[in-house]
């Protein structure tokens, strides 16, 4: 009996690491890995005609349909896909420069720092659906702030969430307003990691502020910018909740986005195969970005084998 004890203890300590990581590994398997494989697998099926019929294997037909512009969902997906790219691209192109300017402004010796920081960052902590409900009212057709101001200037009012040519812009502006402060903090961290004596040396050489900005600061922030480009682009694929309040993807999908489209289709059993296929496409896109992020930033930076 006493001879068994040390053996038992040793076995136990061999198992310890696995027991410690088990909860996380199991949860990640259950809610990330397993659903991912299910999504891929079920994207190869069409639901049976009635609820009791088994699903019908269709191979890649769902994907073929989705990329067929004459198909009822395919035509919508093309438009929504394009919208999503415009939405993501515009969010990145506009919010990153503003974020940099905000960081430069906040990184000075200024009075009222807490107020400025609050102003720029508070939208980040709001629920997107709350931000949307604020903006829905700013955008409102007759009573909204923006249209009232336009009218008081003698300009025609704009149907911000109903005009097919404007709606995507309106939806993007909300996202920019919400995300820019978040990206600002990364630029701020980047700025604060630049040693001050570099600037002192440049000033001695007679370089003015803007010369320092473009020759020193921006090149030194290149890593931050690259990181933010990837992160903000990936985020834009996932930040769609404001559509629920602003326009629900209308008019005629001109203001619709990929993930919101998935959300809209979830209720209909008939489209289950397609919903899975669209999710596969969406996840595939996100994987491209996150993997490139890992390759750029994690390679060699980790001491694990």
């Amino acid at each position, binding site marked *: 009996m006493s001879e068994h004890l040390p053996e038992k203890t040793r076995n136990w300590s061999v198992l310890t*690491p696995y027991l410690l*990581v088990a909860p*996380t590994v199991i949860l990640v398997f259950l809610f990330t890995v397993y659903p991912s494989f299910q999504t891929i697998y079920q994207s190869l099926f069409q639901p049976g005609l009635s609820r009791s019929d088994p699903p019908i294997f269709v191979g890649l037909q769902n994907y073929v349909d989705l990329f067929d512009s004459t198909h009822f969902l395919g035509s919508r997906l093309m438009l929504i896909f394009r919208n999503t790219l415009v939405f993501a691209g515009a969010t990145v192109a506009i919010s990153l420069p503003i974020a940099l300017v905000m960081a430069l402004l906040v990184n000075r010796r200024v009075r009222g720092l807490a*107020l400025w920081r609050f102003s720029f960052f508070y939208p980040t902590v709001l629920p997107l659906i709350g931000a949307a*409900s604020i903006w829905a009212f700013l955008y409102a057709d007759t009573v909204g702030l923006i249209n009232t101001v336009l009218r008081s200037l003698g300009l025609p009012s704009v149907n911000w969430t109903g005009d097919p040519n404007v709606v995507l812009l309106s939806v993007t502006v909300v996202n920019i307003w919400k995300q820019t402060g978040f990206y600002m903090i990364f630029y701020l961290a980047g700025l604060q990691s630049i040693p001050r004596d570099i600037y002192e040396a440049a000033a001695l050489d007679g370089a003015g502020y803007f010369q320092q900005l473009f020759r020193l600061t921006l090149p030194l922030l290149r890593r931050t910018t690259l990181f933010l480009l990837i992160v903000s682009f990936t985020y834009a694929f996932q930040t769609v909740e404001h559509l629920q309040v602003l326009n629900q993807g209308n008019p005629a999908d001109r203001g619709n986005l990929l993930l919101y489209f998935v959300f809209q289709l979830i209720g209909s059993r008939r489209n289950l195969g397609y919903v*899975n296929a669209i999710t596969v496409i969406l996840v595939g896109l996100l994987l491209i970005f996150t993997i490139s992020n890992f390759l750029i930033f994690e390679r060699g930076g980790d001491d694990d084998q």
Partner: protein
Amino acid sequence: MTSERNRWSIVADVLTGLLALIWLLPLIFTILMSLRPSNVPITVGNIFIGCGPFEELDVLCRFTLDNYYEAWLVAPWLQHLLTSVLVVIGVLGVQMITMTLAGYAFAKLRFRGRGLLLGFILLQLMIPTGVLLVQNLTLVRELGVFDTRWALMMPYWGTAFGVLLIRQTFRGVPTDLEEAARIDGANTLQILARVYVPLSLPTYVAFALVSISARWNEFLWPFIATRTAEVRPLTVALNQLYQTTEVGAQYGELMAGTLLVIAPLVVLFLLFQRRFIESFASSGIK
């Protein structure tokens, strides 16, 4: 030289103020609207406050809390608040445990398959849970937790981000401290509770702020994973309020409802500004 410097610094100050104003305006406008009597229409000369042009000084008498009262009556807010709070606590509590256990193993123990298992967990960072709506809906149905608060919590119990964050912190804890405790007869769990966790509190706070705001703000998943009003969080209730009231007619009520939902986080942020910003920064680069 100095005067030119001053001129630029004034330009920068003005720009700061202007940008801040643009960013604050939606919030200011929301607050004013929520206080505006519903019978005072928004007109060109009377945008901000519910007063005529010559009564601007008479502001307070025109402000009203009626909108809050009306909004309060529309939905069982306390129920929704309870759900939001329970979900936030229920997620964070379990996350703290799972990430501490796994984070310790990955930081301090050597075992076969360590890199492989860590890589497996990192899959969660590449495939965001929020995107797998369809299959997670099927899953919670199969698990029998559809339309319960559990459905809102379980997908988030395991956290790759948390594991990475705490692993990094635990690595900085000297192993001597652990060995001293072990000589005193403490087992692994006791060592975690007595040595590692107390030394890593700032990391836990940073993680908590990110986790709390993510769960508090979530909408799509709670919307599809629940049906009964009492297990739906505040974000879903706000959407309900939105869909059932008329934007043009009951804007005051809508803005009051919006403020009720966003106030807790804004206040939390006001109190812990610095910590919030630091912890959100840690959610990006490690």
